[in-house]
């Protein structure tokens, strides 16, 4: 069963990976991703960032994305944690961990989950900059990153 959590507090990567390792002896590969708040975006300094989400739908969207990844690749276990509320530069914002018997599946499923999270999970970022606050615009590159999975088979 995948673990999906939305939380204001920080997370610990080692702790989440160890929890996954403890649940199965068949795991040979753990791929993970941590997104970090940068202090610059589109040429402006970012002093803080606030994340809004859609309670209920966000969890549901993440569950669907992880289920889809588990259909495409051999996923033994997965954890997705996304923080909400106000964060500072260098804070961790999102964690995706995927465990598999083999590395190709772990890498592919982890990147797939991140690419779909970026386009399909209802989160919105608002940045505080010296020029005031602004909502972050969606990037066309995120749609491209998602769409390339449509033309790919499952990796090995």
């Amino acid at each position, binding site marked *: 069963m995948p673990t999906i959590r939305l939380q204001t507090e920080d997370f610990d990567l080692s702790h989440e990976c160890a929890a996954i390792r403890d649940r199965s002896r068949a795991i040979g590969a753990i791929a993970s991703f941590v997104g970090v708040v940068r202090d610059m975006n589109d040429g402006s300094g970012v002093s803080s960032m606030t994340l809004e989400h859609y309670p209920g739908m966000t969890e549901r969207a993440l569950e669907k994305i992880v289920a889809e990844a588990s259909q495409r690749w051999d996923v033994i276990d997965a954890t997705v944690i996304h923080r909400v509320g106000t964060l500072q530069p260098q804070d961790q914002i*999102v964690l995706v961990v995927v465990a598999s018997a083999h590395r190709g599946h772990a890498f592919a499923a982890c990147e797939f989950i991140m690419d779909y999270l*970026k*386009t399909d*999970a209802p*989160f919105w970022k608002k940045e505080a900059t010296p020029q005031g606050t602004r909502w972050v615009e969606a990037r066309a590159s995120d749609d491209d990153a998602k769409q390339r999975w449509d033309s790919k088979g499952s990796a090995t």
Partner: protein
Amino acid sequence: MLKVLYFAALREAIGVAEERVALPAPATVGALVEALRARDGKYADALAPSRRWRVAVNQDMVGLDAALKAGDEVAIFPPVTGG
């Protein structure tokens, strides 16, 4: 009636997070958006086609031709930017 939710920049532009709205005729997402736009300039501007907003019904993403029924939860929001 429908429960309509707005998020992020759209919520700020319209000035409310949640409201009750009558089921439009025909009962589709497209007709609901038309009815909201007709209310005033604030709605018309926030829901202009150029703004690339998205719609979810009962927490699933849908298109403008999706059907609505009484009691549905409809959410309208900008393209997502998490992660």
